[in-house]
């Protein structure tokens, strides 16, 4: 019998908005699936798309990148830079045959605990729908 697919999802969260938003999710006890593991960075602008490549290579089936809403970046414009890079990176994903849907970018502020839980649920469902990334390799 096939084992039920339990995806690995890595989230890169910026310290000031989305990491704090995820903290609020916890403080408010909104539940979400265990599949997501967060990595804290100071700003989404720090995220090199190669981190997503590394995550996929290390067994992640999906990657979430979440930062401050446009115009609210703690470092003025880091999230704009991240958005541009990720948009371009999506084209590359398509080119190598990994569905760009495996990479999700979202804006979650420090006050949006509920939204963070919803985003995680959406991402997890999406990845479950897409199936394991290793299936593609085989």
């Amino acid at each position, binding site marked *: 019998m096939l084992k039920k697919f339990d995806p*690995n999802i*890595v989230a890169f969260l910026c*310290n000031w908005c989305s*990491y*704090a938003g*995820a*903290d609020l*999710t*916890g*403080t408010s*006890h*909104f*539940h*979400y*699936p*265990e599949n997501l*593991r*967060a*990595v*804290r*960075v*100071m*700003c989404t*602008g*720090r*995220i*090199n798309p190669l*981190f997503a490549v*590394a*995550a996929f*290579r*290390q*067994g*992640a089936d999906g990657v979430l990148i979440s930062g401050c809403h446009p*115009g609210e970046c*703690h*470092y*003025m*414009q*880091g999230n704009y*830079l*991240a958005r541009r*890079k990720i948009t371009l990176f999506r084209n590359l994903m398509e080119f190598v045959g990994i569905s760009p849907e495996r990479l999700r970018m979202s804006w979650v502020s420090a006050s949006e605990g509920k939204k963070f*839980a919803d985003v995680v649920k959406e991402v997890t469902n999406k990845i479950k729908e897409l199936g394991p990334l290793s299936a593609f390799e085989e």
Partner: protein
Amino acid sequence: MKIGVYICHCGVNIKAKVNVQKLAKFAEQLPHVRVSKENLYMCSEPGQQMIKKDIEEHGLDRIVVAACSPRMHEITFRNLMKSVGLNPYCLEIANIREHCAWVHEDKMKATKKAQKLVAAAVQKASLLEPLEAKEVDVVPAALVIGGGIAGIQSALDIADAGYQVYLVEKEPSIGGHMIQLDKTFPTLDCSACIMTPKMADAGRHPNIKLFSYSEVVDVKGFVGNFDVTIKKKPRYVDEEKCTACGLCTQYCSVEAPDPFNLNLSKRKCIYIPFPQSVPACYVVDPENCRYLKTKECTQCVEVCKKGPDAIDFNQKEQWVEVKVGAIVVATGYDTFDPALKPEYGYNLYENVITGLEFERLSNAAGPTTGEILIGGKRPKDVVFIQCVGSRDKTVGNEYCSRVCCMYTAKQAHLVREKIPNANITVFYMDVRAFGKGFEEFYDRVKMEGVTYRRGNPSEVYRRGGRLVVKSEDTLRGELVEVEADLVVLATGMVPSRHTSEIVSLLKLSQSPDKFLLEAHPKLRPVDTASDGIFLAGCCQGPKDIPDTVAQGSAAAARALIPLCRGKVTTEAMVSTIREDICRGCGFCVDACPYDAIEFKKVKRAGRQVEVASVNEVLCKGCGVCASVCLSGAAQHKSFKDGQILSVLAALGEEYA
């Protein structure tokens, strides 16, 4: 490398969903881990003592705490490490409460996730490097840009605390908009009466150096050490010598519109903006003076020669450089240009005026010596239209200007006082009387026989010799036309036309309404995203006088923090660039939002090459440079590529 791992139960908060004993056992066999323990409350005194004892006994050099969010107790454990002589940046926190125990239901799955988080934290801890936060000396002086009530208040507070202040005002006198006002709501004190003593205090304060008729043209540096260049425009009158006797004005033969009275009257071309100007020094209008245009007339010079001999047409622009530790921006506002609402006929009819023009008309020192006269006659029917240029998407201003409701009520009161039999109508959308004593004042004005009609007029037009204001009365649901001899437009506040210059000068941000953006709307209302630069008054958004004064003092208090401390601590987790592999492409230089990276020349393999170099004091540690660097030379300390990749590898492992 000796790592200690400490698993917190957080009472039952974590323990209920994570098998902490299993987690501690699991951590024991991770690479470099020397001790792994659990405790009821790791942040408590016994918990901290345990860690301290272990550091000393086992010689631990890296600490991993699996507990609540690093945003809660990172600082607690850093201080603990510092207290036993361990570098505080050799700490990694695995967030197993907010990001695990509190958001998951299945204990087995949550424990598995906690294992991954702890393994990742141990992995990262093994790669953490000790960091040092730098301390930099602060120049014990402040720059205040703008000499309105906000800037004056800030300057006085900083100067009273004993620090040098450079107060820069672009007009010939300080005073700003407040000195133009007649009475102030809701107390009806005369604006000049409460403003002029403050102006005089600022003018003669031993710690305040006033640069009037001057502009800040360049700012370089960072908190504690700003280099400021100020341009002094030529007044053509020596500030030291001028006694403000006013003889020159009497002999001057050219008149020009008086901007202080909003061009409602004329003044001479050598003039003092208003009698209580600070500095009390005359100034030559360079656009209209006959000497400056054609060198024909020297009457003022000749009469002044017999006295103080202060007029000097050889004056040139001067540049002055000062050093300051903090900057307060108090550049104020402009009033909305009613020409953008042509339906109100501001440019067509001379008896349609703005609220600020009304202030000058009503002011005893104004063009009509305080009598409300239009075309030489007292108006009998007066109509006020509120929200002109505020709460109006058609002109791009969605915000409320916060003062117009109350200044309209005050002006309606002044009309009632000066013209007792006048018919006064106010058209409003909503009356916002939110401040102390405001609602009471609004009630009083209504009781004085002022008709408030709810509706936003669609048009002002002339019928016969009179104006007609046409509107819907939305409470009655009917169209109304009100005849008027005087229509006053309650024009709102818009960002100063110099805002974009200030933004590029100081690298500030603007909110969607184009006013200057504060660092946090609730908790840091006078800070900016740039350390050492603070906001006061209407440059940040519309506000009334008490709020402006409060903010002026708040900005001064914030600016005094680095000045009093004498030192600023810089971020330790900043970026760094390896000179030996930097290829000098400059991508990081362009990407850095703080201009913290610049090129420097180094010798490499016997050749001069340009490489990028981080100014660690300017760097705020966002790491953007590291993500655009193609050679891997730019790295974000504690978030280096290798450190993050090791975390990803640990998260990808499957653990039993």
